[in-house]
C-alpha cells in the first residue's frame, strides 16, 4: 500500500516519534474501534498519553499559550498515527479533541486555564454527551434539559452510546436550555464533572457482547454556573465548531488492506488447497476496494495540509471505509463456511474468532459518527448542491 512521500522535515519528525516510542513505550495494547483503556492500566495509560502531548507529538496545533505551536499540520498527525499503529500502541482516546475546539473558540480564560492543561497532562479523560434515545441522526431533537436555578444549572435527562462514559473524568454535554426556541437555537454546551452527584453511568452491552458504550442518566444534577461554555443558545454552533476541529478520523481506524491480507492468510491456514476462482476474485476485488479507501484517506490528509478540503471529502471516506470494512468482514465469515459460525472460547474458532468479532463490530462504523445515510445527505446536498 502506497503511502505519502514525506519531506525531509517530516522524516526527521518521524524519527523523533520513533525515538519517543522506544523511550516511553508503555507496554499497553492498541485499542481497537472505540474501546476504552482498562481501569487497571489507566495510570500507565495517562502517563503515556501525557508524554505524547508533552513531546509536542500531539496537540501541536494548539495555541502557543496553551502548549502548542499554533500551526496545524495534518501530515504530522498522519505520521504519529502511522507510527502508533505500526508499534501497535494506543493513542489518546476520548472527546478531548472535540472539547478543546469548543474551548478555544467559546471558552472563558478561566475555563481554558482549568481544563486545557489537564487535557495535555491527560489527568482528565473526556466523553461526549450528545446522543440520546430520541436524538441520534437528528441530534438537534435532544431533550435533556438544563434549567437555571440561582447560580447553578439543573440537568435532567438521558444520554446514550456514550463512549468511555464509564472511565471518563469529564463530559462535554449538549442540553436544551430554552424549550420554546426553535430546536437548534435552544441548545447550550456544558462541561460536566462526571463525579457530580445525580449522574449514573450504566454500561450498554452491544451486539458483540462487550460493553464499550454507556447510558448516562442525569437526575437533578447541579452544575455550577461556570460549567456553561459560551452563551445560552450557542450549543449548536459550539458543537459544529468542535466537530470541525476533530479531523482525519478515518485514518485512525484499523487498516482495511491489512484485514484483506489477514483474510487471505486465514483462508490458506484453514485449507491450503487452491481457492476456487470465485473466491480468489472476491478477495482480489476486496483488496482493490480496500486499497482505494486508503488512497482516498491519504488524499484527504494531503488536501487538508494544502487547504483544499471540500465538504464531501470526509463523508466520502467515512461511507467507503465503513462499508468496505463491513464487506470484508462479511465475506470472511461467509468464506469460512460452517466453521465461520464458531466463536471464542472454542478452540475451533478460526484465527481466534477475529473476523466473527470484526463482523459484528463493523455494524457500528456505518452508524456511528454520522450514519451513512446522513453522510450521503451531506455529500449530495452540501457537496453537490442538490435541493433540500
Amino acid at each position, binding site marked *: 500500500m502506497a503511502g505519502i512521500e514525506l519531506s525531509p522535515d517530516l522524516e526527521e519528525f518521524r524519527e523523533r516519534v520513533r525515538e519517543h516510542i522506544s523511550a516511553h513505550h508503555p507496554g499497553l495494547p492498541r485499542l481497537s474501534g472505540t474501546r476504552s483503556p482498562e481501569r487497571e492500566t489507566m495510570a500507565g495509560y495517562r502517563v503515556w498519553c501525557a508524554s505524547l502531548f508533552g513531546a509536542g507529538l500531539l496537540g501541536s496545533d494548539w495555541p502557543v499559550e496553551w502548549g502548542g505551536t499554533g500551526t496545524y499540520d495534518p501530515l504530522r498527525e498522519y505520521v504519529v498515527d502511522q507510527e502508533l499503529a505500526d508499534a501497535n500502541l494506543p493513542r489518546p482516546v476520548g472527546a478531548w479533541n472535540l472539547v478543546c475546539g469548543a474551548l478555544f473558540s467559546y471558552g472563558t480564560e478561566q475555563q481554558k486555564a482549568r481544563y486545557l492543561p489537564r487535557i495535555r497532562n491527560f489527568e482528565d479523560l473526556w466523553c461526549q454527551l450528545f446522543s440520546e434515545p430520541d436524538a441520534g441522526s437528528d441530534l438537534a431533537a435532544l431533550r435533556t434539559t438544563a434549567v437555571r436555578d440561582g447560580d447553578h444549572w439543573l440537568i435532567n435527562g438521558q444520554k446514550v452510546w456514550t463512549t468511555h462514559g464509564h472511565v471518563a473524568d469529564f463530559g462535554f454535554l449538549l442540553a436544551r436550555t430554552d424549550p420554546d426556541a426553535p430546536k437548534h437555537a435552544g441548545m447550550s454546551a456544558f462541561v460536566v464533572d462526571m463525579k457530580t452527584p445525580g449522574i449514573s453511568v450504566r454500561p450498554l452491552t452491544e451486539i458483540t457482547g462487550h460493553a464499550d458504550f454507556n447510558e448516562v442518566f442525569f437526575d437533578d444534577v447541579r452544575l455550577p454556573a461556570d460549567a456553561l461554555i459560551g452563551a445560552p443558545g450557542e450549543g449548536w454552533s459550539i458543537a459544529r465548531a468542535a466537530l470541525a476541529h476533530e479531523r482525519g478520523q478515518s485514518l485512525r481506524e484499523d487498516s482495511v488492506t491489512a484485514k484483506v491480507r489477514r483474510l487471505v492468510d486465514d483462508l490458506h491456514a484453514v485449507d491450503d488447497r487452491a481457492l476456487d476462482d470465485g473466491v480468489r476474485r472476491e478477495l*482480489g476485488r476486496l483488496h482493490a476496494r480496500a486499497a482505494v479507501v486508503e488512497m*482516498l484517506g491519504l488524499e484527504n490528509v494531503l488536501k487538508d495540509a494544502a487547504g483544499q478540503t471540500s465538504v464531501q471529502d470526509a463523508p466520502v471516506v467515512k461511507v467507503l471505509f465503513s462499508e468496505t470494512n463491513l464487506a470484508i468482514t462479511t465475506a470472511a465469515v461467509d468464506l469460512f463456511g460452517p466453521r465461520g459460525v464458531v466463536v471464542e472460547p472454542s478452540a475451533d474458532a478460526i484465527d481466534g474468532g477475529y473476523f466473527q468479532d470484526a463482523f459484528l463490530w463493523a455494524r457500528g462504523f456505518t452508524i456511528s459518527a454520522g450514519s451513512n445515510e446522513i453522510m450521503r445527505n451531506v455529500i449530495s446536498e452540501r457537496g453537490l448542491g442538490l435541493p433540500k
Partner: protein
Amino acid sequence: MRLPTEQERVLREACREVLGRQSTSAHIRQVAESDTGFDAGFWKLAADLGWTALAVPESLGGIGGSVGDLAAVVEELGYAGQPGLLPQTLAVAYVLGRMGGDSAEIRALLSDIGGGDAILTWGGVGPDSPGTVRLTDGVLIGTVEFVPDGGNATHLAVPAMEGTTTWLVVVDLTAARFETVPTMDLTRRYGRVWLDGVAAGSIRLPEDAVGLLFDLGVVLQCAEGGGIARRLLDMTVTYAGQREQFGRPIGSFQAIKHRIADMLIETEGCRVATREAADALDANVAAGGEPVSVAKSWVGRAASFVASHALQIHGGIGFSWEHDLHLFLRRAKTNELLLGSPAWHDERLYRSVLAGLKEGER
C-alpha cells in the same frame, strides 16, 4: 499518494476548454455515423495544440509528459466523449520513448507521432485476443482481435513471437486488412486485423515493453473511465436539480440523493486509483501490476455503476437514442470488459496479495 500537479491542472483545463467547444453532441454523433469514424478535425487540432507530442521525449522535440499528464488529457477526452486514437497513440509513444532505445526508425516514428502524421493503435497486448502472432523471416503471421479503430491507424503495436522470443513490434498497417466488428461502443470502432505477410519492420522492443503497454493501456482506459463517470455525474446532478415531479425537483428526494452520493463516491475512487497507478508506472515500468489492477478493478465497475445510476435517474429521456447518456454508458461497459475485465484483474490482485504474504513469511 499525492495531489494533482500544476502541469496536470494546466493540461486538464486546456483540454476541457478546447473539447467543450469541439466535442459537441452533434459533432460526436456525426463522426460516429461517418464511413470511417475518423475525426480528422480533432486530430489536426490535437497536433496543433501539442497533445500528440505529449508522450514524445523532450530530446526528440516532444513534451516528455509523465503518465499522470497523459491520464489528465485522456480523462478529459473521456469526459467529452471524444472519439479517436489519442489514448492509444500516447500509450505507444510513451513505451517507445521509455523502452525503445535510440534507433533512427524510432526517432522518425516518434517525430511523426508528435507532428500528428502517425496514428497508433494496439492489439494483442492483454487477455482479449487469443492466439499468437508469429514473426518468421521478418514477416508476421496471425490475427489480432479487438483492435481499437484499426482502420484509422497508420501503425499497430503488437506482441510477436520469433522462435521463443517475444517482441513488441510496431508495424505499418498499410498492408494489413482490418475488419470492423460491431460492438456496443458507438464512438470507437473495434475490429480484427489480419497481419499475414505484413513486414515486421525494424522497430522491436523487448518483451517487458508488452507488459508496460498493457499496464499503460489499462491506466489510460481507467483515466477515460474516470472522465466518463464524472461527466455522467455532472449530467445527473444538473438533471435532478431541474426535472420536477410531484411539484418538486427529483433531486430533493432522498432516494435520488443517495444514488447520486454513491455516484460521487465511485467517481472519487476512479480519480485516486488512476493517479496512483500512473505514478507507479512512472516510477518503475515493471511496478504496474498491483496498482494498475487495483485501478481497473475499481474503475471498470465504477464507470458502469455510475452510468447505470445515471440512466435510472434520467428516467425515460435517458433511455432514448437522442439523449447522449447511452453513448457514455456504452463506452463505459465496453471499456469495463476490454483489456481484462475487473474479474480478470481481481485474479491478478489475489495472486499479488498472496505473493506478498509469502514474501513476508520468508
